[in-house]
């Protein structure tokens, strides 16, 4: 089966509940996001106003202007707004990930680098605005620089979120993005632009409203200014909202039209009230705040309608495909759990287990280099039962492996474990003892011929000292062994000299007389350093 499917574990929450929770949590989150955005924009706006005001006023009225410092008053609230916006945001994130796993995660992975940048933007905006809001009086230019950084970081965040949502709501374009990357699509870009600006405009309205009603008591100048910002924001929203309406990617449903009408009517009421009060008495919170909250909810319902339409056509298929795939996998689930059970029973704390799990598939249970996977390898695995070596030499081979062969490194096992493997090899095949005596005595003539043969042929790679560190051996992979620390049982050494070692530089010498070959075996075993010598 090759179809996109939902995550296979069943959803822990009924769909209606999760959707309801998602809407409520998102509305709550967005309310604080908007106030956070508004507070950030207003704080920076008031800073500029105070600074320019000071410059314009010159030396005549500095006291008045420095008393203003409205930006400090505004930005002090940033800590609250951003803290609540962020923690409240975890809920919708959680809920959308469980309700619409595939569209959400797909959009996120498509946007991954930008999505991860949000973390940095959040930290930057948060710490910079907190620094400016909490009595950090810095030079104007420093304030300007920090403010610009903070504002850019802050305003980038909703832009990225909107982009992720636009992407999630357009599943028909995912494949093209995966294939060719993001392409410039005028319809999507225009839609994104208006949607993003609509968030910023709403931020301005809600931020200004918050400060108008909650932080400017007894300060008519500031109230008047905030009301102007709010009115400006509302008027901008009407224009941006119209743009957004015409850039919609789907036909609105009748319900969406109804919510839209409610929202527009409330917006008209608030605009009327604000315009009426700009020059006069303060507005009543009891009328305006409920209007604004219902306005927000009705606009969010419009948004929700589009999102549901976008996901609605996708989710049933995803769930059906998940069910089919789940059934298919159910045939294998016993096997899977059984293999898990076996795997966690195995404790890699002794040489025997480690050999059985990590070595035997090549080297074989009997150490004959004939494990079940040995036949895949051109260079046959070592016949460990025939190896006679030292702890240090084997340790080195186990930790570093043998380049040019399939022998991996086992440095991920701690020293005691590797020592345990060597002990196991020794207990089973006596790999740390000296090689057995030759089956027959070698004549003096054969020994002499063997010595000559070694010097003329073998020493080129193996070296006269048997260490295998000659200029010719440098390029060899696998490298020749070090005969001062490693030997093979006589019969196997004899066989290797006759037939060579497949897929290595070690050629066979079948034409050598048998006596000379035994002589070579004897000569090699004499190169072993006696135990304890350096």
């Amino acid at each position, binding site marked *: 089966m090759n179809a996109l499917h939902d*995550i296979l*574990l069943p959803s822990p929450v009924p769909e209606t509940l999760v959707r309801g929770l998602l809407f409520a949590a998102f509305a709550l989150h967005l309310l604080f996001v908007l106030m956070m955005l508004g507070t950030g924009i207003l704080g920076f706006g008031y800073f500029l106003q105070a600074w320019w005001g000071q410059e314009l006023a010159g030396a005549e009225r500095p006291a008045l202007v420095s008393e203003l410092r409205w930006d400090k008053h505004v930005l002090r609230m940033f*800590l609250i707004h951003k803290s609540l916006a962020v923690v409240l945001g975890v809920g919708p994130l959680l809920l959308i990930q469980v309700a619409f796993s595939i569209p959400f995660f797909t959009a996120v*992975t*498509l946007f991954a680098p930008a999505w991860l940048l949000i973390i940095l933007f959040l930290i930057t905006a948060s710490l910079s605005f*907190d620094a400016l809001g909490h009595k950090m009086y810095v030079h104007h230019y420093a304030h300007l620089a920090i403010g610009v950084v903070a504002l850019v970081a802050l305003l980038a965040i909703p832009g990225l979120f909107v982009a992720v949502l636009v992407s999630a709501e357009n599943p028909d374009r995912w494949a093209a993005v995966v294939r060719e990357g993001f392409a410039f699509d005028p319809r999507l870009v225009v839609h994104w632009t208006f949607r993003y600006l609509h968030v910023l405009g709403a931020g301005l309205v809600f931020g200004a409203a918050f400060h108008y009603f909650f932080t400017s008591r007894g300060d008519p100048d500031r109230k008047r200014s905030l009301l102007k910002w709010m009115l400006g924001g509302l008027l901008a929203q009407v224009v941006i909202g119209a743009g957004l309406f015409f850039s919609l990617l789907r036909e609105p449903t009748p319900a969406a039209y109804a919510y839209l009408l409610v929202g527009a009517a409330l917006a008209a009421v608030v605009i009327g009230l604000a315009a009426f009060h700009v020059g006069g008495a303060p507005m009543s919170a009891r009328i305006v705040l409920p209007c604004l909250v219902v306005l927000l909810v009705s606009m969010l319902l419009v948004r929700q309608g589009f999102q549901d339409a976008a996901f609605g056509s996708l989710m049933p298929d995803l769930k059906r495909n998940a069910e089919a795939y789940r059934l298919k996998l159910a045939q294998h689930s016993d096997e*899977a759990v059984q293999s898990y059970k076996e795997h966690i029973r195995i404790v890699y704390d002794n040489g025997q287990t480690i050999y059985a799990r990590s070595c035997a*598939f090549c080297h074989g249970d009997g150490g004959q280099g004939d494990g079940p*996977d040995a036949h895949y390898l051109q260079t046959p695995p070592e016949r460990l039962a025939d190896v006679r070596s030292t702890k240090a030499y084997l340790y080195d081979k186990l930790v570093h492996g043998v380049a040019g062969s399939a022998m991996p490194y086992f440095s991920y*096992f701690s020293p005691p474990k590797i020592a345990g493997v060597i002990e196991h090899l020794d207990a089973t095949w006596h790999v740390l003892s000296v090689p057995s005596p030759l089956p027959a005595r070698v004549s003096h003539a054969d020994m002499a011929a063997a010595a000559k043969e070694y010097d003329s042929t073998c020493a080129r790679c193996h070296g006269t000292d048997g260490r295998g560190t000659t200029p010719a051996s440098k390029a060899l992979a696998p490298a020749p062994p070090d005969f001062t620390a490693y030997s093979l049982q006589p019969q196997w050494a004899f066989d290797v000299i006759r037939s060579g070692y497949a897929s290595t530089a070690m050629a066979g010498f079948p034409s050598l007389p048998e006596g000379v070959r035994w002589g070579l075996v004897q000569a090699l075993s004499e190169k072993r350093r006696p135990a304890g010598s350096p």
Partner: protein
Amino acid sequence: MDFPYFQFPWLGDGLVIAITAVVHVIISHGVAIGVMTMIFLAEYIGWRRRDERYEAFAKAAVKPTVIIITGLGAMTGVGIWFTTSALVPAGIGSMLRLFFWPWFVEWAVFVSEVVVLLVYYFAWDAWQGPRKKRHIYLGAAYVVLACLSAVLITGILGFMLTSDGWPWGREFWQAFLNPSFVPQLAWRLAESFALGAAFIMAALLFFQRDVVFRGEALRLYSAVLGVSAALMALTGAWWFQVVPSSFKTHAAFAFQMMTGMQDRPWFWTAHLVLMGLVGLTAAVGLLRWRLLAKVLAIPAAVSLIIFLAEFEWVREFIRGPYLMPGYMYANTVLLSEHELFKHEGMLTHAYWYNQTVPKPTPEDQGAFLFAQNCGTCHTIGGRNDIRARFRGRPEDGIFVMIGRTEEMVPFMPAFSGTDDERAQLARFLSKLEQNAYKLGAPARYPPVGAEER
């Protein structure tokens, strides 16, 4: 396979999540639980003894603490969601299905915690005199909520080390109240209080001018540090006892990491030195040796941060091949899918792969098999470079090793796919090791250019 592939370039996915998570726990444990508890302790003592000095100290410390918690702690906490959803969506998506309710309750606790913290901070001046008691209750409520969020998250974080229960029963409580739940929680709380005490001691020693008060408070927090550090050692050992032996054997690797690991004496010495440093700091503080305490306080805090990072690292590492025990491998392939792919192949089941590459070349197939099987931990050319892992090994050897990862390396998942796919991956990796490919954008699939060099 259910999501388009993205890997964080160079660092790899695991390390990015780990960095975010460690920064977060330093703040969530050390500051949000630790420092705030110490501040509350000072406020409480000041209130009970009518000692203005404790009150003033607590009040001065709370502002930077709140800014760090909300600005860095909350952001990195959300950051863990961001990184996991972008880097291992199938993993976090599945975890979420299992642990939705604890995470949802955690969210409610988290929101309450922040609201209480903000009120605690902003109402400090207003709630004085007869209203002070209310402020004290608020502080206590904060400490309880902060600890509660640790309780909730520990149930989820300990789940991966489950040796029995959930994989068979598939019941929520089996997953949440896993064997390592209690010791891990105890350790986390001990670490939080120790780190909080160390931070507060540093603040006292560097910023507090009142000599008499400084000595008194130093003694108080040194006692907290000493007791908490002792509890850390005990609960840490307890936790390690509870971890299933099969997982525990990965620990040596996790502790020592790659090349440094063969040198064990160095490792234990370092631990003893760091533990000794923390103990010594507590002792010096109890004796009110100001100058020495001033020298030691920050190194002691750093040592505790190292222990915290190490604990998280070991915990994440020794879960080894499983993201969800008995259900999902670390590379997000399901254990049952692994069995299926053996017969039917991974490529035929890979939706996005088939969407993306209509006429795949062997390179595409190899690159995809690498991305899905190995890409969670291994990069090409970055950290844990796959080329270094196979340096000098022939193609047939790579083929055999890929087929035996689960047995040969106890903390690695198995390769999922048919033998043909394994051969394709081996060929791709062998050519990669020989630098036969021009590497394309490393973060996206496929990570190689279409043409060979």
